[in-house]
């Protein structure tokens, strides 16, 4: 099937996409350009506008202003065409509980207009891929949460859509089940455009090619996880375990670096650039007995909490 309504390199483009509820702007004129085959993660606190954005892109909500294109099709002018090229695994596990895993997949194939033989072939592959083969003919209401999620993702994949929306795909799952789903998502990297929303920042770090952080309906940061950690946040943390730390030492370090904190049996220093030798020399010159030094690289958590601090504190 030729999915292309245009030939540019982007699967998804948004142009001032806005959703307003009375006086509150849930999504405030966001502009995105997501490349083909990219895994793009939307991060943000609850109510930041992630799900509203996805719902608009999936034609479930009408934008108040602005628009977006998916594979070149406008979500406002041509929602039917958009629905032919997308699929979604919603936040809640959206499966037909009285059907078997096999029947659920056949159902989604039929709804998406696939021929029966083709659906059977794909369903068989997906059942294997998602590790559901042993219980494929069991009613899914008896499945564990992890199995239901894997099935939910398989149902989104049956139509082989070029654009896939995964809204909190691993929410509430144990680490083992989460890793199993990560493994499946990784398989589609470079092949499908995947929009991933997640509360687990390490998930975005591990899977996403690029991340956008949304706060109060605005995109406040966007880039690869590495760019966000180093270029945007870029704060290093040094943890020094030492004895004989006096208030004079703390004052002296405070003059060298703005963010110095006393912790149990030691000091924590945060700065964009830390000079290891200067700090060690200074501590030794003041008679402190250093027991250990460790450096902490910034994580996506640091970036996220630093950027969304205001909203979280509200």
């Amino acid at each position, binding site marked *: 099937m030729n999915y292309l309504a245009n030939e540019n390199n982007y699967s998804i483009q948004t142009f001032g996409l806005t959703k307003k509820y009375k006086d509150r702007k849930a999504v405030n004129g966001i502009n995105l350009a997501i490349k083909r085959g990219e895994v793009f993660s939307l991060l943000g606190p609850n109510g930041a506008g992630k799900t509203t954005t996805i719902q608009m892109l999936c*034609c479930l909500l009408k934008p108040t202003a602005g628009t977006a294109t998916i594979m070149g099709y406008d979500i406002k002018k041509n929602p039917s065409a958009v*629905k032919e090229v997308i699929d979604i695994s919603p936040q809640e596990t959206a499966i037909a509980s*009285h*059907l078997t895993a096999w029947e659920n997949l*056949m159902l989604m194939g039929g709804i998406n*207009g696939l021929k029966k033989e083709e659906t059977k072939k794909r369903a068989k592959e997906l059942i294997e891929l998602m590790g559901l083969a042993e219980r494929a003919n069991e009613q899914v209401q008896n499945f564990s949460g992890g199995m239901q999620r894997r099935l939910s993702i398989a149902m989104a994949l049956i139509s082989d859509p070029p654009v896939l929306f995964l809204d909190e795909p691993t929410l509430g799952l144990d680490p083992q089940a989460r890793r199993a789903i990560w493994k499946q998502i990784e398989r589609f990297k470079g092949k499908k455009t995947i929009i991933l929303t997640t509360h687990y920042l390490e998930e975005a770090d591990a899977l996403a090619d690029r991340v956008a952080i949304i706060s109060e309906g605005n995109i406040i940061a966007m880039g690869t996880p590495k760019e966000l950690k180093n270029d945007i946040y870029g704060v290093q943390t040094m943890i020094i375990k030492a004895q004989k730390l006096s208030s004079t030492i703390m004052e002296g370090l405070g003059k060298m670096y703005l963010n110095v904190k006393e912790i149990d049996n030691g000091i924590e220093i945060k700065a964009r650039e830390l000079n290891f030798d200067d700090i060690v020399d200074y501590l030794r010159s003041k008679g402190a007995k250093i027991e250990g030094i460790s450096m902490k690289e910034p994580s996506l958590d640091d970036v996220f909490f630093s950027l969304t601090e205001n909203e979280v504190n509200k």
Partner: protein
Amino acid sequence: MRFISLANRNIKEVYRDHVSMGLGLGLPIVLLVLFASIGKNAPIKIFTANALTPAVIVFSFGFLTLYSAMLLARDRESAFLTRLLTTPLKPSDFILSYILPLLPIALLQIIVCFVVGSLYGVTINLSIIFALIILFTLAFACIGIGMIIGSLFSESQNGGIGSMVIVIISLFSGAWMDLKMVGGIFGAVGYALPFAYALDATRGILNGSGWGDIIIDFYWVLGYALIFFIGGILCFRWRTKR
């Protein structure tokens, strides 16, 4: 023809809920057998087979409301409907696939009740087709009520509201009492709703009335079926279009 896939799923979803299906088909039979047995020993007009069988059928249609409401509300709350709304299904596909699976149940309820009723002396002849037309029209109305309830209320609320509809049908259809004899507000409310008209018409047909005798009753039922049906579609669209 994508709606066929969803209609098939809805058939399985309803038919595999054995408790609800058992109630919808089993309870009417139990009531029919029980009241018909009473009618044999105590000759009360309302418990004669020709009066009782249509009453039990109309009563059993309350379960169509319950099934329709539960199915829709469950899909809405489990986000399954959200998933479906991102697929290329058209609004008409949704309406058809939520209604069609319930019609065979209505037919089954009618057939089972007439078969059991015939054991107690229900008159079955060609004019029963008129009864089928009016009963099917009422079935549409009951499914429409279910769509309204399923669109507006949650799955947990639906159990109570659906049961209330069954009670309303029981009381205001004249299934277990003669509404004309009761009269007053009770009678007025009964004849402001479609159930009593459907019941009177079906009883009339079984007792020898022709289509001309029941045409006014039919229009009442048809009018309500259209109102509930359109209401159901509007509520569904309101709930799914934001």
